[in-house]
């Protein structure tokens, strides 16, 4: 499975890590839904750290598509909300 962390690049993550990642991802989503800033920070940091720890970076010239995409490390909750709608941050 390939995971992209925005602003950092792509990682190949073993499928066995999926359960843990999903767990953290759900925590992140819940935090955003409840506008819970401390929980949001903790969940985002935890999720990204997990991807970096479990994954190995893809070579820069790889043209593979990611299975999952994660927000920037320093994202605000607002930014993440916009990322989840297609009028948001993604240019053209």
């Amino acid at each position, binding site marked *: 499975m390939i995971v992209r962390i925005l*602003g950092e690049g792509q990682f190949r993550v073993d499928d066995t890590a999926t359960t843990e990642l*999903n767990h953290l*991802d759900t925590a992140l989503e819940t935090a955003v*839904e409840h506008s819970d800033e401390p929980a949001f920070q903790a969940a985002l940091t935890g999720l990204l750290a997990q991807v970096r720890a479990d994954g190995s970076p893809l070579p820069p010239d790889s*043209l593979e*598509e990611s299975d999952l995409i994660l927000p920037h490390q320093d994202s605000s909750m607002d930014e993440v909300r916009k990322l*989840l709608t297609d009028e*948001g*941050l993604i240019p*053209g």
Partner: protein
Amino acid sequence: MLMKGTAARMGVMKRVQLVFKAKANKALDKMEDPRETLDYSYQRQLELLTKVRRGVADVATSRKRVELQMNQLQQQANKLDDQARKALGLGREDLARDALTRKSSAQGQLNDLQGQYAQLQAEEEKLTVASQRLQAKVDAFRTRKETIKATYTAAEAQTRINEAFSGISEEMGDVGMAIQRAEDKTAQMQARAGAIDELMASGALDDVGGRRDDIQAELDQLSANSDVESELRRLRGEIAANTPKQLEGGPNGDGQAANGGQGQSQAQSAPYAPPAPLAPPQQAAQSAGIPVSDLPSANDQPQDGEGS
């Protein structure tokens, strides 16, 4: 917010990915011939590469501007510290206080700028890495594009093009966002840098090498006064040592001495006439009925008692 229907428990990761994919497909669907898509996308990639490189340069420019301001503020803080020291040495605690207050304000601005500088540096690094990654992917895409075109058969083309295209367009979305974020941050900091420039121009922090500030003016005045005092002492010492006979001089010497009495002009016009002891004879002359105009340079008011 996005709790509607099946999107409710999809997770952030999956939803962001879907949004990316939707964007990529929209661009792809515009083209009738899949091969056109390749060239179109390649053009976009090159444009984005140019843009991200310009972004790196812009951030670097902002970083340098902040660096320049930091240097100016540091110089200013040092100068104000010197002024405070000097003012205290001259017994002017009020001036010292004033200088230290301004120093503290300059120091606050400096701390703020240090934070901005670190942020800009990080942003510059991120964009540089992003531009290198995009360059590698654009090169890979070009190779694949040429291969696909050379071996083009309608049957397989669409799939292979889609693969190459979605891989690169994801990167482009990522890099595009990175540029946008860097631009936003830079714009914020430029606004703050502009505010600091204005603050320095206003004299609130007093620009180094610029116009003279009031603390410095007062210190200069104090120090000029004390220079005059020490010059006077020196001259008196010289006179006392070298020309004791002049003390008994006639009205000529009296008048010159009375005319002097203030600072260095006296030293030039009447080098041998000590001011204080000679003033009384002039007063004596006036009270004795001698017209004041008869005394050389006596149009000036008597200066005895002043300047010492």
